[in-house]
């Protein structure tokens, strides 16, 4: 199915109950819409956001391997086939 693929990692898989979810592009034209869509319970929202409109500093959201902090942050536009990855903090390789 065309659209945007969201992949969740590490403990976020427990919080969201899934490893991956496909979202139609029309419902998620940018990262702000996408996160609003997938963070649809208080627990999920709290896992990603520090306050409304501000993701937690330690959460990494990447579009095709690029952290949204190096793109347009929450306003980063999404395209058909984009892959969004959401990571909690991991370290220590």
């Amino acid at each position, binding site marked *: 199915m065309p659209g945007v693929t969201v992949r969740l*990692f*590490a*403990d976020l*898989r427990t919080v969201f109950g899934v490893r991956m979810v496909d979202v139609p592009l029309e419902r998620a034209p940018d990262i702000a819409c996408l996160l609003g869509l997938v963070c649809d319970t208080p627990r999920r929202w709290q896992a990603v956001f520090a306050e409304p409109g501000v993701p937690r*500093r*330690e959460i*990494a959201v*990447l579009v*095709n*391997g*690029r*952290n949204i*902090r*190096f793109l347009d942050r929450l306003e980063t536009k999404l395209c058909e086939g984009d892959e969004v*990855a959401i*990571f*909690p*903090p*991991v*370290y*220590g*390789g």
Partner: protein
Amino acid sequence: MTMDGWMGKVLRLDLTASAASVEDLDREIAEQYIGGIGLGTRYLYDEVDPAVDALDAANKLVLATGPLTGTGAPGANRYMLLTKSPLTGGIANSSAAGDFACAIKYAGFDVIIVEGAAERPVFVFIDDGRVSFHDASELWGLDTEQTEQAVIAATAPDAKVNCIGPAGEKLVRYACVMNDMGRAAGRSGVGAVMGSKRLKAIAVRGTGGVTIADGERFMDAVRRCYEALTDPYVEHFHKHGTPGVLELVNTYGALPTKNFQYGTNPQHEDISGERLAETLSVRTRMGMACPACPVACGRVSRVGAGETATYGVGPEYETIGMFGSSCYTNDLEAVTRANFICNQAGMDTITTGGSIACAMEMYERGLIPEADIGFPLPFGDGEALVRLTDMIARREGFGDLLAEGGYRMAEHYGHPEYSMGVKKQEFASYECRAIQSMALAYATEPRGACHIRGEAQDYAIYSVLHWHITKDRGIEEPLDPLTLDEQPEMVMELQDWFRIIDSGGLCNFMFYLGMDEDQLRDLIESATGIDMGGYPGLMRTGARIFNLEVLFNRRAGITAAADTLPPRMLQEPLPDGPAKGYVAELGRMLPPYYTARGWDEHGDLTPQKAAELGLQLAAGT
């Protein structure tokens, strides 16, 4: 003079004469170099001619603890092994955690210096300061687990042991030294030097303790460190350990794949930390912890089933990255079997995996005849990986050539450019075209390619942002791994900062999770009673240690020309992932790095900088 934090004693073991002697630790030198990598480098620099053959009896092996080792401070459980490396020809420093490290302190010593060489295999028993030398002829050939059990049986039930396996005995140039049934001083061939001295094992039984200069301040510092380590995400480390980073590294396009030809692995899910926890891990709620560790990142795994099942420690992220992705087996069982062989033989998994990946690429390109290897060696062949790992450990057939390291093997066939490493030591499991700071860190690390002496990946992809290095620059978010801005100074500061962690005797993991420079300084100062001179003094000490390592290398003939990367990294744009099209921009980072270090344009320490760091006496130049 009594000392706190430090035990104040150095034990010298002369294997040629089967004699032991004890010296006082020079307090002034201890204050300047702290312990671990710092103190060990100073002893090595003062006592070993860098021109000596690494496997000659004139080389020495220095075991150095830190003043915090064994004190109960979080993660204060490490010792450092230093010697001249048979792999790089320069300085080797390789660290391991465990009861063995603490036992050295409890037996009354900060440093053990092993010199000379025994005529026949020996092991040494240090029993609370009483030293005895024992014939180890019957242990020669045993693997590391068998050796540890046999040495404990022959000495004391509460003895702690480090030892070599068959790889160290056979002088595999990247043999490691194992302790506490699975902890490894892994890199740079310290095990081969121990093997060249025919020293099979050191057993230590220590029943003493470490005195602390200011107990109240120290306990307060320890409490605040443990509070800093209360991370809501720490459970992830319990469950997945270091392999938990693999999918993040792959997402950033930095997972070495097929000998660093690619930065992403389409089959990454097959070798992820989660997959390991679901399949082979046997402790999935909490990993294996070293003494005084609240993280417990160590993996314990099982391969096979029923009566033929084999258990062991590992695999760590680095091992999976090299055996699983760079060799492209994408098979955790093959990875773990090869890991267990390395543990038992006493061999660095990173260089083993990197060397085999190099051979796989050269085989596929037709540069190594199949007849030389004895069987096909394509990427992805897990059975061939396990078989060749065993052959390296035994120096059998083609394994004998690979036991020299990937660089020497590739050079033998006229193509050293396929060896992915620096100073003849293989890269760790990070593709440096996708993390530019890593390119500079790899190129300039004195012990050769390395990911843990200055962790340039931490602020780029791991969101570690609570150290002065980022805080003092106002950096509140991870740095773009593809940017070059500020990298030369930041990499330099990381390298110097990590020298202090490795001098104190602590584990790096404590510092990803919450501890910082000020807390470490507080621990060292309250334990020893010294004044480090604030954060600037701490960093000056780190720089002193780093520069002394470089001076050792210069005297060994390793010039700044060795601060480079394989042509693939410098000239071939990465073909895939988010860093597609990028090469390692080393040429743009190296000159400002040398300037930041206070070195001249040739990459050499200037007399002014040496004097500033208090190195004028040690340098002798």
